[in-house]
């Protein structure tokens, strides 16, 4: 999916209205896209504003006991409890150290051996703790890497499923786009169903230079209508899901140009591929 496709999911994500599979795909993208993260935060602000629409003309109040219950729950909360205990333990440990130093002079041999044994056990525990911590960290890194791979695979699978669905639908049209003089080795197939859901599969297109992307155009009645932008991988292959505008469904020419990476409202760059050959 292209960046623009993810951008169109952000409003729904702010309302948590995406399906679980879409959320996974979007979250994978958000990890690497600061622009989308920042836009999502803006949409979340707007969505949070809706909370005010819930207020009654005379706002309702929770019962007065709720406040007391919350503060009581906080006091007995285990998370906080451990915070307090940690602090208290710190003081106690310091106190214990002071006492232990004073007592050293009066230790019996049995106590000394006991202390050495305890020291050794303690050291062994620390060492095994370290090993466990290291293993845990490695396992987490591996898990994160594998999750990334699974997400990529899921995304790819979803794209392929959609492509198959479009290609297999009744009434789907297939149009071939051939490379122009600018890129004679390029070739692409555009399949689109009756509703205009389209998938473009391109080959022989080198990855676009930095700041540039390929853009699909639908030309009907001599007027080019902008499609989405896409890029290609190192092997020169790229795919794109797009929507053919209604005006272009019955008769249209398709073309691909090189444009600035966010796409243009009208073509400005050279035509690399065209269905008119």
């Amino acid at each position: 999916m292209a960046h623009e496709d993810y951008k169109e999911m952000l409003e729904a994500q702010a309302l948590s209205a995406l399906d679980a599979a879409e959320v996974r795909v979007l979250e994978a993208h958000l990890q690497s896209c600061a622009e989308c993260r920042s836009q999502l935060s803006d949409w979340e602000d707007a969505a949070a504003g809706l909370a005010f629409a819930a207020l009654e003309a005379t706002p309702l109040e929770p019962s007065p006991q709720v406040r007391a219950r919350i503060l009581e729950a906080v006091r007995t909360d285990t998370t906080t409890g451990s915070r307090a205990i940690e602090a208290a333990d710190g003081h106690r440990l310091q106190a214990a150290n002071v006492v232990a130093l004073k007592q050293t002079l009066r230790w019996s041999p049995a106590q000394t051996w006991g202390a050495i044994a305890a020291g050794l056990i303690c050291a062994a525990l620390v060492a095994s703790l370290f090993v466990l911590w290291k293993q845990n960290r490695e396992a987490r890194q591996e898990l994160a890497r594998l999750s990334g791979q699974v997400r990529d695979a899921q995304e790819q699978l979803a794209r392929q499923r959609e492509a198959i669905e479009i290609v297999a639908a009744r009434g789907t049209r297939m149009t071939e786009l051939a490379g122009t003089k600018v890129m004679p080795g390029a070739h692409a197939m555009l399949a689109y169903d009756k509703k205009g859901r389209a998938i473009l599969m391109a080959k022989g297109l080198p990855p676009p230079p930095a700041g540039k992307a390929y853009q699909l155009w639908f030309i009907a009645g001599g007027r080019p209508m902008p499609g989405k932008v896409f890029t290609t991988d190192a092997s020169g292959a790229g795919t794109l899901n797009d929507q053919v505008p209604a005006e272009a469904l019955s008769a249209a020419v398709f073309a691909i140009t090189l444009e600035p990476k966010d796409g243009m409202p009208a073509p400005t760059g050279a035509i690399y591929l065209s269905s008119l050959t």
Partner: protein
Amino acid sequence: MQPKQAQPADVDLLHAVARGDELALGSLYDRYRVILFGLLMRILNSREEAEDVLQEVLLQVWRRAADFDEQRGRPFTWLVTLARSRAIDRLRLLGARRRLVDSAAQNTPEEASDAVKNTLHSEQREIVQRALAELPEEQRRILILAYFDGLTQSEIAATTGTPLGTVKTRMRSGMIKLRKLLGKEMNILG
């Protein structure tokens, strides 16, 4: 209306909560109990459930205040999102029956009377309700089904018998228009 300088105070309160300051949690509660409780009541339509979830939310704020990152969002949005998400979880737990009752009840929004214009949050309430009123009915309905009933786009399509593509377009247009309408007023909205 809240003064503009209330926002840094919210951030400070959350930092204090993260350090284990119970008084700061109490202050946050006092400041947001009405808006959060109103939201929870709207979603859950039950005082008992709403109070229970409100308590859960504040306990979660207590435990997770250290996770709040002011670079990534406003305290108000963080609190409201947390509360809404808890309430939707509870709603799903309670089952669809209650949701249907809710939807029926929600179709009759009340107008603010002059007598209560000065009550807490009345200005924000008016801004948001005015913005919602400006949306086309089909867009407003979709935003409400998503936000207050916790329905996904697919669920909205199935419930209303509208094609999924149309639901997506309407949701998007509705949000774009809502943000535009709220844009100037966002600083007042928490």
